[in-house]
């Protein structure tokens, strides 16, 4: 198992290098000169040329890539060209906020989704089941910014229960986390429901029931645990969606995270900051994939990574 993990970690390296190259190549083709945009309306062409030289834009793509990777190898992510601040410092400021939001949303989506899906399956075709299914449909269909603004209006403006934005206490985290989790929660609930239903029809479950085992124990110890395998797949895929969804959630709730930082970097063509941010996102995504694969091994004794 340990060797499997090591092999996977080693395999991420070429993937990351490939991603860096892809991002740099894409930025070449996006119109807009970072130097001209930064210096603004009244800049002289000499000033723009000087800045281009300073940030290395006058060198060919391959040279810039080699330069970036060589600095990356010693842990230097470069400096944001707009703010003249080390990218590492920017990431240090924003990553914890996004991480906190992402983990909270994932927890809500998984725990809430599995629970609701399990209940839905156990109480199949009752009013409760139908209610959960309709709510799931709404959750998947509504765009994040709409959900977010509605929650702000209801819980901040009308009920004065929670703050409308910003970061700080647990009460600041609730609304953004719920907003971000909503589509994923809905999807996980549906997946869990069908997976549990399928498992409940299996022979070994009927055997357990005929043995006289307590139905709740049957549900959780046997059915849900085995139903989790397809659910884990969905969760793994949803983690990627959550990373993307943080951008909108962070904007609506004024949450000072990495998603917003990356979007601002795109608008100002701050490619050094952008590369740093995307690199971190890629590492997180690859890490999640690894965790998902390891969870399979835990859940399904038939799978082993020798």
């Amino acid at each position, binding site marked *: 198992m340990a060797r499997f993990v090591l092999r996977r970690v080693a395999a991420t390296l070429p993937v990351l290098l490939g991603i860096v190259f892809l991002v740099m190549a894409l930025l070449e083709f996006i*119109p807009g000169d970072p130097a001209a945009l930064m210096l603004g309306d009244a800049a002289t062409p000499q000033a723009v040329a000087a800045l281009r030289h300073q940030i290395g834009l006058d060198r060919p793509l391959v040279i810039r890539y080699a330069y970036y990777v060589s600095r990356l190898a010693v842990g230097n992510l470069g400096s944001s060209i707009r703010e003249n601040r080390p990218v590492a410092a920017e990431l240090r400021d924003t990553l914890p906020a996004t991480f906190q939001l992402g983990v909270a949303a994932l927890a809500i989506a998984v725990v809430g989704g599995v629970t609701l899906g399990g209940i839905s399956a156990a109480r199949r075709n009752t009013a409760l089941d139908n209610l959960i299914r309709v709510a799931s449909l709404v959750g998947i269909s509504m765009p994040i910014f709409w959900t977010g603004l509605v929650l*702000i209006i209801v819980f901040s403006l009308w009920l004065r229960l929670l703050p409308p*934005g910003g970061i700080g206490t647990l009460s600041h985290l609730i609304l953004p986390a719920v907003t971000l989790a909503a589509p994923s929660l809905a999807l996980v609930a549906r997946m869990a429901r069908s997976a549990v239903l399928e498992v409940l029809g299996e022979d070994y479950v009927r055997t357990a029931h005929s043995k006289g085992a307590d139905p709740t124990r049957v549900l959780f110890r046997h059915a849900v645990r085995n139903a989790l395998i397809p659910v884990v797949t969905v969760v793994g895929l949803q983690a990627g969606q959550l990373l993307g969804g943080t951008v909108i959630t962070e904007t609506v709730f*004024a949450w000072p995270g990495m998603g917003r930082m990356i979007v601002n970097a795109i608008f100002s*063509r701050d490619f050094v900051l952008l590369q740093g941010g995307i690199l971190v996102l890629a590492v997180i995504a690859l890490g999640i994939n690894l965790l998902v694969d390891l969870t399979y091994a835990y859940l399904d004794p038939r799978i082993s990574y020798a």
Partner: protein
Amino acid sequence: MRTLTMAVVLCMALAITGVAGSMGSLAFAQKPGGTLTIARPTDAVSLDPQQETTAPGTWVYQLILEPLLVLDTHMKVQPKLATSWKVLSPTRTRFFLRKGVRFHDGTPVNAEAVKFTYDRAFNPTSPGRWASLAGPIARVDVVDDSTVDIVTSKSYGPILNSVAMPYAGIVSPTAVQKMGTQFSRAPVGTGPFKFEEWRSNNRISIVRDPQYWGQKAYLDKIVFRVIPEESARTIALQTGEVDFVLQPAPTALPTFARDKRFKVDSVPGLRIVSIGMNLSLPPMNDVRVRRAIIHAVNRHSIFQSLLGDTVIDARGVLAPDIFGFADMQLDKLYPYDKAKAKDLLREAGYTPGPDGIMQRGGQPLTLKHISGRGRVPKDAEIGEAVQAQLREVGIDVKYEVQEWGRVFSLLKAATLGYHLFTTHWGVPTGDSDFGLFPVFDSKQLPPPGWNTARYSNPRVDKALEEAQASIDPAKRKELYAEAQRLIAQDLPEIPIYNTRENFVYAAYVKGFVPHPSEYTLLVHGVWLQK
């Protein structure tokens, strides 16, 4: 004896009334203390004018760094760190510094500090971002400890306005040398507030300087928060999370105006939004076509329906508060008149085609229009309205809305493939030189310049260049009036609206004075009546 008792009683009564009266007036006096929380859409890039000339930065650092002069709410030059000045020659102006002022780090403000600030900004190898806005400033000469001369490389009329720009705050040389790049995250100046803390993309807080040389602030602290979403900003005001909102959603303003717990304040701004025309691309070079377009566009109805009272009518290519402004009488010269528009097109040789589109020599009158979105209020929507109105007189407009970075690179390119472009021009110096020269002088062509319309009129060039060099305000006004009259006749662009600086805040926030410049936020005199 009774008279004496009466007299004593009378005196006591007067004394008590006097005390009571003054206590009554205390209720309306400025209450010291408290924190003002302000919400704005984006964070500053830096708090050092060397790197930051956008509003989110200037709003904050103007309370920390002070220039030699400032522009007041009527855009007139007033003393700040300089108490008086004398124009010695067309290229040399002498400034007498205020004595006894210290920076927040305790070091004294003297001529050396002023020289340091300007040398830093006008360093030829790494100039500050505001250097190109300040005109031909060559150097600063130290005359004595509290006197400096600012020297320009050629005769320059608007020198005082350049010195009064929000970016020209004097920095502490000791702090800059000690802190290096960290100075841009924690500036040290002479202002009524000192820097406290900056959490990126989240909040910047500044605290009252009890040692300030001038009228000390009433507030203990000001916090600038970042809330990107427009409606979230106004909701934060309604729940009391913030006390003051910058760039509020225009649709929310009428609701706040009716609510006694809040106050809506505004003042006409200095930025004109207009539709520029590319005179290098036929048929835009034909003045009759340009005039037909302005006759066909109902400018008032466009911005009234899209923006209501949140903007005002443009009376020319400059805002009224700019020195040298002349009303272009656009409504008198070019009233909304579709019939006149069609007549002008016919004069230019166009006849209506089968589908209603004007054509000349078998070619339909199709114009390409490029605009950004969200750069200025309703910029994209204005283009749509114009497209519909031009269709009514037989002009077919192919309208494109692109992301601002792309539009910027298109407008700055050596050639422009569009006939029409939505553009805007703000004037941080408050002087017509910056308002007109970079945009209408024929030598200021892109990529370096901003004459995106490729407009060329030698008489306008002469007037603008003379006005730039003259140090006689009356003469300059005359020349600018002449230039604006010619521009009104040639019509290289169609002004649509003049921005308004809109603010909405809680009713207990007192002492705020709105300033026409979008870069300036006069909150240092604010107190909280809570």
